[in-house]
């Protein structure tokens, strides 16, 4: 809904396109470790961006997104390992499973708000892990082995492509009638309904859109890693990670979740190689400090710290203390 200066916005688009081009060229540097790290960071950024749609825009803190991820991974794994179908068919299955499940789950739980919604999706995530662990088609709790492709650069470009698609979608969302309806739901659901927003439909659609990107990321991951089991892909810790990254970067913004995912991926990578044992503790501290001093994320910080200076942090501590 912002008009913006056309020259500045053009400059911004060019800068973003340059960043994407640079990222796309990264596999040609020939550093295998870097490419591996890149795949993981890009997939995490896609997950954070997917969570951003339901959590950041519609304001529903989903713990069900790790289920969409798991379903996506299993969609590809079942298609390729059990039926010897090509990867793209597996991706279609991943998309179908994730989106269909989000639709059903959404109709059931999106009438709950706040903590109730979070807890309910959390419970469902646990139930899904148990169900998949007992499905022979999904390989039970042993898991499934996929054919080995061994082309890391390809997975890297796929992950980058998906992230760009997810981010362009959120960019459109932030400027569309649909997106404004979602923000209205987040800001005051009863007010939105009385003003004509079909809140149930919008929430379910947002959940399905969120699931689409999450499931496709799971599908890419499955083929890339070539072996999946229920505990590995229906991982609640992954859901927590998406939330932390999106919230750290700025939920309800277009680029925030991506920035958050990149920054936290780098920090956690450095900590993991340098100071193994205390790495997770440091990670935790980074998050606590971030939440206290910049609760609205990096994107908000970047936009406001220049005028407010150090007062930005002081005001945040004041405004959000208990």
């Amino acid at each position, binding site marked *: 809904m912002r008009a913006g200066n056309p020259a500045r916005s053009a400059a911004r688009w060019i800068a973003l396109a340059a960043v994407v081009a640079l990222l796309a060229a990264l596999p040609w540097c020939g550093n295998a470790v870097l490419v591996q790290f890149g795949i993981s960071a890009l997939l995490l950024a896609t997950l954070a961006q997917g969570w951003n749609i339901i959590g950041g825009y519609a304001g529903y803190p989903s713990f069900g997104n790790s289920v969409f991820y798991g379903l996506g991974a299993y969609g590809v794994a079942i298609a390729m390992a059990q039926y010897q179908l090509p990867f793209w068919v597996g991706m279609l299955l991943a998309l179908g499973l994730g989106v269909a499940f989000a639709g059903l789950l959404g109709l059931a739980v999106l009438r709950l708000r706040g903590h109730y919604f979070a807890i309910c999706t959390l419970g469902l995530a646990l139930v899904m892990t148990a169900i998949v662990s007992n499905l022979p088609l999904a390989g039970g709790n042993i898991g499934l082995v996929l054919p080995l492709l061994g082309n890391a650069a390809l997975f890297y470009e796929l992950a980058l492509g998906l992230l760009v698609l997810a981010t362009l979608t959120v960019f459109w969302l932030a*400027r569309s009638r649909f997106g404004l309806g979602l923000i209205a739901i987040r800001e005051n659901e009863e*007010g939105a309904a009385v003003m004509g927003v079909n809140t149930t439909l919008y929430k379910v659609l947002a959940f399905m859109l969120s699931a689409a990107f999450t499931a496709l990321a799971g599908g890419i991951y499955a083929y890339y890693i070539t072996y999946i089991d229920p505990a590995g892909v229906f991982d609640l810790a992954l859901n927590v990670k998406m939330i932390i990254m999106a919230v750290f970067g700025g939920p309800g913004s277009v680029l925030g979740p991506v920035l958050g995912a990149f920054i936290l991926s780098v920090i956690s990578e450095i900590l993991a190689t340098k100071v193994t044992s205390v790495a997770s503790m440091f990670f935790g501290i980074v998050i606590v400090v971030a939440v206290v001093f910049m609760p609205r994320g990096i994107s908000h910080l970047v936009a406001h710290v220049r005028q407010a200076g150090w007062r930005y942090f002081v005001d945040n501590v004041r405004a959000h203390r208990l």
Partner: protein
Amino acid sequence: MDAILEARGLTKRFHGLVAVNGVSFQLRRGEILGLIGPNGAGKTTLVNMVSGTLAPTAGDLLFEGRSVRGVPAYRRAHLGIGRTFQVMKPFPGMSVLENVAVGALFGANGGERNLERARAWARACLESVGLGKRIAQRADALGGPDRKRLELARALAMKPRLLLLDEVMAGLNHVEIEEVIEDIRRVRAQGISILVIEHVMKAIKSLSDRVFVLHHGEKIVEGGTAEVLSDPRVVEAYLGRQRR
């Protein structure tokens, strides 16, 4: 004159408490109907049932001759029912313009699909209530009186055929009340039918064509404004207590 809104025995029970008890009334097309009654009389509950945020325990509600029982709030907005909230419900993190644009984008008949046109209409609505200079501000940065104006602009942006105003003048000073009375007159001149809930008697007197009174959830009096306001039961239930 036909009724745009008709309530038949509308009742709302909250557990043991009967907040609205068998209320029937008609709101004629193009009229301003006043609704008064002491705090806790059930006025807001009645508005909630008309706008669809609360389901009645019993009774029926007809909008433009058709029952809207079971019709969800958003569909009633599309049919042309707009309202303001006594306890205001703005979208705090959005700009004032975006707040109103939501009404333009989703209101009567599903709203305007074109963002540019919706924004232009939202700006016009904001200007009509004197908020034209505040469009870029965040809604939660507005002061009390401006929030009331925003509440009105949001409802107007929906292009409603029926407007329910739940104490839009509470907390305003004399000058501001006069302004809002003028705003409401202009709204009516566009052919919008209005239900006004107000404790400000000056507003009820100068705006309403007719008035009805709720007391303990029941309609106790209905009729022409002057005659209702001088009715002994009303003075007893409501005005008398306030004067003391």
